[in-house]
């Protein structure tokens, strides 16, 4: 009878309403399983302090710890998202001139030896190239990050003090980067290239160069109950079509390092079940301009080249629609130090393409080049697809303003030395910045005489401003200075930026808590909170 049926149905309906309106309780992480993923490319070694590529930071991060780290769960990194690792507490003293870390007790290295403040001093003395350092790094790409450190003290086995020459609030962030792990003082540096001895959530199980890096759970990790995973396997898969196919076939759990939008869409279209995630990346495609070699010594030629590179065409072409635009610092909202949008829209190359190309041709004519005397330029780049594609595009753009441009492909092995020697005219380059902070960007890339200042650009004025902003404690005042530096760099064409990139990752639904940050690619590979719902 109708009444009785509705009476019977009512409690069910009520329960359904309650169930739907209640918040879903967070799932309890399960332990177990091995996460299989791929690095950007084959790591040249396992030692982050001696490399400048994420390919090393990716597998090595699981094995080491920093003093402090960026919270994996917070997408935008910043001073507010720093969490303790080997350091339990820290504090600035003396107007940001001394940074004191109180270290965790009872932490052991993977080989059983105890972790003390000596390890911290050993590591960072080596990295900063201290004259009395116990060890010397063969290659030291981030020496300039610690240029401001005067002395590192260890008053007791669980306290470290960084004494700085001048205030530098950014030091804290640099120590939280994936590029700043703490090394063991009792293991020779050379050994760390092929094996890793850290305090981290995973131990190295096997490293086969060019094939894979396999890590297994560290049962004595100082964070109880972590990691959830039994292991992480970084399988080196050279080309993206195989990476996509491997993910789709279930042989990889997560994939996407180095992917562009087209790869992402291909992966998803083949397997709609895949979870796709996107984030901004602190990697930009830029043009290195050799300030010391004609014809780029002429500011008119530099400006012409910059104007000819139509950023909108770059967006449609090599960037496949996924670029964001800005100056030398990561543009907002992903980055916090970028130039305001209104200013970015007026940068060379951002305006009307036809007009700017005409302008460029005129500038070249002023500089003495024309149809009868075309400017001959060699565009150098690294011999891998992510460099060659935008570089080929750039060659075409230059040819459209009458430049006789050719592409020169340089093998990875000799790329950096060639750039350091300034043995090129213009080059198409990719720069990944360790953390979204002016100190990590400006000193390395634009300071007079910096090894990684691949343009030979030198301005004492800018150098002075760099130091000034580095010690400015007031956030708003610092932003003003940073923008001013950025503005000038763009005006002088010191490393014009074609566009900032994005990260495109895909993983199976059973992978939980996979971290992806909006303003860096280097600081998320520890994977101690990742778990598999299998």
């Amino acid at each position, binding site marked *: 009878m109708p009444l009785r049926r509705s009476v019977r149905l009512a409690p069910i309906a009520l329960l359904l309403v309650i169930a739907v309106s209640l918040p879903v309780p967070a799932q309890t992480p399960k332990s177990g399983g091995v996460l299989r993923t791929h690095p950007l490319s084959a790591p040249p070694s396992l030692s982050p302090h001696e490399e400048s590529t994420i390919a090393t930071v990716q597998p090595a991060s699981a094995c080491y710890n920093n003093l402090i780290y960026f919270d994996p769960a917070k997408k935008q990194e910043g001073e507010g998202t720093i969490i303790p690792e080997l350091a339990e507490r820290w504090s600035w003293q003396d107007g940001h001139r001394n940074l004191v870390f109180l270290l965790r007790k009872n932490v052991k290295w993977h080989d059983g030896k105890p972790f003390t403040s000596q390890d911290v001093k050993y590591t960072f003395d080596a990295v900063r190239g201290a004259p009395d350092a116990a060890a010397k790094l063969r290659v030291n790409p981030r020496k300039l990050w610690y240029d401001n450190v005067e002395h590192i003290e260890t008053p007791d086995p669980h306290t470290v003090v960084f004494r700085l020459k001048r205030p530098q609030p950014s030091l804290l962030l640099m120590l939280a980067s994936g590029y700043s792990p703490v090394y063991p003082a009792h293991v020779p540096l050379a050994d760390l290239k092929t094996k890793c001895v850290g305090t981290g959530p995973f131990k190295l199980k096997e490293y086969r160069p060019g094939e894979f890096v396999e890590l297994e759970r560290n049962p004595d990790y100082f964070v109880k109950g972590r990691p959830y995973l039994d292991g992480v396997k970084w399988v080196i898969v*050279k080309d993206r079509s195989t990476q996509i196919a491997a993910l789709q076939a279930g042989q990889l759990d997560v994939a996407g390092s180095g992917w562009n939008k087209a790869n992402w869409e*291909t992966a998803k279209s083949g397997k709609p079940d895949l979870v796709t995630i996107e984030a901004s990346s602190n990697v930009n495609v830029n043009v290195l301009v050799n300030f010391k070699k004609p014809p780029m010594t002429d500011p008119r030629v530099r400006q012409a080249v910059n104007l000819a590179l139509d950023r909108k065409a770059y967006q449609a*072409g090599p960037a496949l629609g996924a670029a964001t635009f800005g100056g030398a610092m990561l543009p907002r909202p992903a980055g916090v130090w970028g130039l305001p949008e209104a200013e970015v829209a007026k940068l060379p190359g951002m305006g009307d393409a036809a007009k700017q190309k005409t302008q460029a041709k005129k500038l070249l004519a002023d500089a003495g080049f024309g149809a009868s005397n075309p400017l001959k330029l060699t565009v150098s780049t690294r*011999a891998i697809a992510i460099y060659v594609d935008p*570089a*080929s595009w750039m060659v075409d753009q230059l040819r459209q303003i009458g430049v006789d441009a*050719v592409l020169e*492909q340089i093998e990875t092995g000799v790329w950096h030395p060639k750039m350091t020697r300034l043995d090129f005219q213009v080059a198409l380059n990719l720069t990944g910045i360790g953390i979204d902070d002016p100190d990590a960007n400006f000193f390395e890339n634009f300071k007079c005489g910096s090894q990684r200042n691949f343009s030979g650009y030198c301005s004492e004025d800018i150098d002075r401003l760099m130091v000034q902003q580095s010690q400015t404690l007031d956030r708003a005042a610092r932003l003003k200075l940073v923008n001013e530096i950025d503005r000038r760099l763009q005006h002088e064409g010191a490393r014009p930026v074609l566009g900032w990139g994005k990260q495109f990752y895909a993983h199976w639904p059973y992978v939980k808590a996979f971290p992806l940050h909006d303003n860096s690619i280097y600081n998320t590979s520890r994977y101690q909170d990742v778990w598999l719902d299998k």
Partner: protein
Amino acid sequence: MARVVDTLDLAAPRLPSVAGRRRSAAARFIRRQPLGSAGVVLVAALLATAVLADVLATHDPVRTSSHVLAAPSADFWLGTDNLGRDLYSRVVHGSRISLAIGLASTLLGAVLGGFIGLVSGYVGGTTDLLIQRVMDIMQALPILVLALVLAAALGPSLPNAIVAISIPIVPRAARLIRASVLAIRELAYVEAARALGVRHPRVALRHILPNTMGPFIVLITAQLGGSILVEAALSFLGLGIPEPYPSWGRMLSIAAAEYAEKAPWLVIWPGLAISLAVFGTNLLGDALRDTLDPRLRGS
């Protein structure tokens, strides 16, 4: 190794004049060699495409556009690549690169090798033995490995690529010409010329060389396909012709595979072009060899 090459070698070319035989040889050729005729057509098409590339192409092969990974359409006959460049125009211009490099390196290797073979065969004795050993050594290394190492040592550029691809042809050409020379050297009329006091170089040039032309042409045609393939492989591995010149091999580099799901035409057409070009030269080479050496007819 020597034994098998002898089986395939063209030892005794015809005497005294080749011209009169040419016309009837051509007619015989087409009748008896349907495959060879197909080869002629393919090679002619390749040559025509290379020469008329500017006319046949619809776009500038280097010009990028915003129509990225577009499907074949009225505007872009074979679609576009990941930088918005017209694939059809790139394939058409690629024929120029492949043919030019293939011909240049084959000719370079064949002429150099031929000269060495001529000297080796004519002079004989210890010189011959020594040169033979060196040729053996050069031939023992796999072509691609040799070309790879050379390209890496010399650096990736157009002239270096040509040199790298030509080196493996030298021993093959030397062996061939040497065999011809050995066969002709002993013939009566050559001895007569010597007896009359004609000097060695003149004998070599005027009497021996013209009669090695047959096998030489076959060699060039046969090796042309090989050279095109090696150039493609070098470009594929990133060591060949640099951008922006469109090279079929480089169009097929691993990067093309990553877009293959969205744009399979990027993988199909350049590879088909290489295959057809090499197929044509191989067919032609086979047919020429059959015609110019009756001993091997039917094989």
